C-alpha cells in the first residue's frame, strides 16, 4: 500500500468484532477507525472521511441504514459494506438503493468479509490512479 493508507471505519457494538477485524486490516496496511454507535461513527466520518465503512445494521442509537444514508449524503463515493444478521427485504432494498456495496451475514468467517474489503480497496486504488492520470 502507498503512503496514504486507505481508511476503514468499523461500526459495531461488539468489541470482539472491532478488534478482530482491525488486526487483519492493520496488517494489510489500512488505517482503522472504530465506533461502537452511530453518533460516534458520524463524528469520525465527518472528521476522517474513511473510504470504506463496515456498518453493523443493528446499532443501539442509530439504525445502520440511517447511518448509511447520512454517510452517502456527506460523500457519495464512500464505500459501505453492511454487516447484518437476519433482516427484512425492505431493509435490503433500502440499503441497495442507498448504494451499499456488499452485505456480510453474521456470524461470519474471515473469508466472508475480508476479500470484499480488499476488492473495494483495489477499486479505490484504481479509481485514484485514473484520477491522477487525468489530472496529468
Amino acid at each position, binding site marked *: 500500500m502507498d503512503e496514504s493508507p486507505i481508511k476503514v471505519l468499523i461500526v459495531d457494538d*461488539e468489541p*470482539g*468484532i472491532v478488534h478482530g477485524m482491525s488486526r*487483519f486490516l492493520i496488517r494489510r496496511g489500512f488505517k482503522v477507525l472504530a465506533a461502537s454507535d452511530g453518533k460516534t461513527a458520524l463524528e469520525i466520518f465527518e472528521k476522517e472521511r474513511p473510504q470504506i465503512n463496515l456498518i453493523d445494521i443493528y446499532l443501539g442509537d442509530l439504525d445502520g441504514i440511517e447511518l448509511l444514508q447520512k454517510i452517502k449524503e456527506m460523500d457519495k463515493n464512500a464505500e459501505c459494506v453492511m454487516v447484518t*444478521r437476519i433482516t427484512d427485504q425492505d431493509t435490503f432494498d433500502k440499503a441497495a438503493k442507498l448504494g451499499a456495496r456488499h452485505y456480510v451475514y*453474521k*456470524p*461470519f468467517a474471515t473469508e*466472508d468479509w475480508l476479500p470484499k474489503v480488499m476488492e473495494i480497496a483495489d477499486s479505490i486504488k484504481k479509481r485514484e490512479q485514473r484520477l491522477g492520470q487525468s489530472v496529468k
Partner: protein
Amino acid sequence: MANPLNNEQQIYRRIKEEKIEVDPTLWDVMYHYLGDYVSSINLLAADSIETNQPIPSEDAKKMLDYAMKASRIVTKLTRPQKIQDDDEANLIKIRDKKITLHRDIQELFDHYIPNDLNIITMCVGYHLEDSNLIPLNDVQNILSCTKNIIHFLDKLRIATGQQRVIHD
C-alpha cells in the same frame, strides 16, 4: 463436526415443503448473540492462523468467554424455562410468550451448535489451565468449529426462507 443426522435430509425437506419458519424474535436473539460471539471467536482463531502464532492467554480468555456466552444463549433458546428475569427483553419475551423453535429446527440446532461450542470451550479451557497458549493444531480445530456453526446457520437461514436476494 457432528456427523449428519440420519434424518437430516427429511428434516430440511419438511422445512421447505411445510414452509416451517422461525419466529423473528428467536431469529433476532439467535443471530445477534451467536452472530457476534461466533464471529469474534472466528476472528481470533483466524488471526492466529494467519500470523502462525499460538493464541496467547489474553485472547484465549476472550474466546472462552464468547464460547460460554454463546452456549448459555443456545441453552436459553432451546430451553426457555432457563431464561431468567434479568435476561434481555427479547429473551423474556420468548419465555413469557412461550415462543419455541419448531421441533425439526430444534433437533438440528441441538445436534449441531452445542457440540461445536463444547469442543471450543473444552479445547480453550484445557490450554488455559495447562500452558496458557493454544497451539496451532488446536486453533485450527477451533476455527473449523466456528465454520461449522456458520455453515449450519447459513443453511438454516436459506432453508427457512430467510435468504434474501442481494445485489452483490
